[in-house]
């Protein structure tokens, strides 16, 4: 296949053009909680986001911010119990997946929505060859035979640029390097050319040089197949190059949304500002590195009001009592900034002050 610049017309895909565009995923007021012995852990508290075909949404946040749990809820791979979704909708092409039967959801998984996990070594089955694990997608979802599936697996390994794919198809995950393993994860997610891919910290377990290669590959394939991509990460560096828009999460809520470059230029939430300030910079060599004070909140006991208030340098009384809603962010003169939102009582001061 060629690059997507030539537009959908020339793509020899079996799907119609309509299916390949438009709104893919709409998460509406999603809540996820875990019932544990110590109480109810509120991992996700009313998340809203959407992804269009060909669009990349980066979900940013510390560990425990609920970014992975949201993704797992979308995939339908949460352990339930202890997990529970008391409220919310996950619309995939307009259909609420939370209302689907198990079998319907299974058919969506892997075929329409696929996921790339963080640690490819533990996420691939150690006792099955990579060829088998890749081929399994075709055998299960498309009813292919063993031979055909293996040929497809080799093709896939070629697509993600694994050298000597034909010789390595029968190798096991432990025989590959970290970067190559992550490529195999990507290949597996891509196998059936899904509409949406969720990548959960796909480069965190890799060393820096390989990170860039893997991200480039992912971005390239995404463009080529015109897929929606949800990129979950805590690495602001990774996001800048590939994402279209960003959602910053804190304590199970989205605290800021923005198109990618605007967020870097003018954050509208003190938490985002803190994250940006804690990126090491060459021009500040020798200075102490900024860090957001305190620890992420305990999800069993989320602070009242704005969850970020105990760590926020700008916190006022209202922050301790009232939960700020995600409101649209505008220019100083009131001109709208499409796609921007902030859940801070003092977003005006933060962005314009």
């Amino acid at each position, binding site marked *: 296949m060629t690059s997507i610049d030539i537009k959908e017309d020339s793509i020899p895909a079996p799907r119609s053009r309509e299916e390949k565009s438009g709104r893919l995923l709409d998460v509406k007021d999603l809540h996820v909680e875990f019932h544990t012995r110590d109480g109810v852990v509120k991992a996700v508290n009313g998340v809203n986001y959407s992804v269009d075909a060909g669009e990349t949404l980066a979900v940013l946040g510390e560990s425990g911010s609920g970014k992975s749990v949201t993704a797992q809820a979308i*995939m339908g*791979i949460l352990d339930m119990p202890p997990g529970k979704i008391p409220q919310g909708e996950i619309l995939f092409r307009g259909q609420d997946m939370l209302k689907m039967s198990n079998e319907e959801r*299974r*058919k*969506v*998984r*892997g*075929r329409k929505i*696929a*996921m790339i*996990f963080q*640690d490819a070594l*533990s*996420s*691939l*089955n*150690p*006792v*099955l*060859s990579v060829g088998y694990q890749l081929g*399994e*997608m075709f055998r*299960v*979802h498309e009813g292919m035979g063993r031979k055909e599936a293996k040929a497809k697996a080799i093709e896939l390994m070629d697509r993600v640029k694994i050298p000597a794919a034909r010789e390595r198809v029968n190798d*096991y995950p*432990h025989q590959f390097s970290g970067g190559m393993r992550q490529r195999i994860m990507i290949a*597996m997610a891509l196998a059936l050319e899904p509409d949406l891919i969720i990548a959960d910290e796909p480069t965190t377990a890799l060393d820096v040089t390989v990170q860039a290669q893997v991200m480039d590959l992912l971005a390239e394939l995404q463009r080529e197949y015109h897929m929606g991509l949800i990129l979950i990460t805590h690495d602001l560096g990774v996001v800048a190059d590939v994402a279209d828009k960003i959602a910053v999460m804190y304590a199970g809520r989205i605290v800021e949304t923005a198109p990618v470059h605007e967020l870097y230029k003018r954050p509208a939430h003190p938490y985002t500002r803190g994250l940006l300030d804690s990126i090491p910079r060459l021009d500040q060599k020798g200075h102490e590195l900024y860090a957001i004070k305190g620890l992420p909140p305990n999800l069993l006991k989320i602070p009242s009001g704005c969850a970020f208030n105990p760590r926020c340098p700008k916190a006022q009384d209202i922050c301790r009592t009232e939960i700020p809603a995600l409101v649209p962010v505008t220019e100083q003169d009131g001109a709208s900034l499409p796609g921007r939102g902030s859940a801070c009582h003092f977003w005006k001061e933060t962005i314009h002050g």
Partner: protein
Amino acid sequence: MGRYVARRLLQMIPVFIGTTLLIFIMVNVLPGDPVRALWGDKPPDPAQVAQIRHDRGLDLPLWQQYLHYMGGLLQGDFGNTIAGNRPVLDEITQAFPVSMRLASMAWTFELIVGISLGVLAGIRRGRFVDNTVTLFTLLVISVPIFVVGLLCQLFFGNELGWITPTVQDSEDMGQLLVPALVLGMVGLAYVARLTRTSIAENRQADYMRTAVAKGLPRQRIVTRHLLRNSLIPVVTYLGTDVGTLMGGAVITEGIFNVTGVGNLLFQALARREGAVIVGVVTVLVLVYLAASLIVDLLYAVLDPRIRYA
């Protein structure tokens, strides 16, 4: 792989010599004299006793007897029994097929039922099935095998009359069924527990999450992804259990009157037939060694990360 097998086979030689020597010494220090026992309650004739001892080489020093015995063994001669002067090999070739039949039935039972119960309990951990299996296996492990054996004999044999209380024909698989179930019961409980723990642990693994995310049907996830990763401890147990089932069936064989190896060993011990004891144990040692070699080779088949060079 070939070199590994060769090395393992070579390692068997010292193990083999060591075990036979130990058994040989132990049989000789046992109180009681098989030659005198030939006369029963009557006073033996010292001259005749000395004659028999000399004929059998029993008057030689122990190390010479051992060398003599090993020399014979290498030529396939297991010696003769003292009472009756029959070749030990005959007794062994009579008893082993019976025990093999009994053991293989018990083993198959352990394998199929044990693993199935373990898988069921493991994937439904903490639920009703799991609790039932855990309780049942605990019960089986805690009750001595002779109690289970006698109860089965009483219930199925005497009360219900489904089986003959004792085995009349040790060649008949049908008659061996209940003894085999009794024999395999404890192993089954261990297999079920091992499988359960292993399954419950591996169920949390990251690759299981991947398998679900791939949209695989549940059955495939369990059989292809979960089971294979969970089987290594179970295979270890099942492997060593082959030997135990073959030689350790003394009680079960006694209750149901099966003329297998356990029975033979028990009789030989009672009559101080050293040659028979050493012969039987020798064969059992070989069975154990072969089983453990096969288990080790199976590891590599089950888990490609294990490779033997």
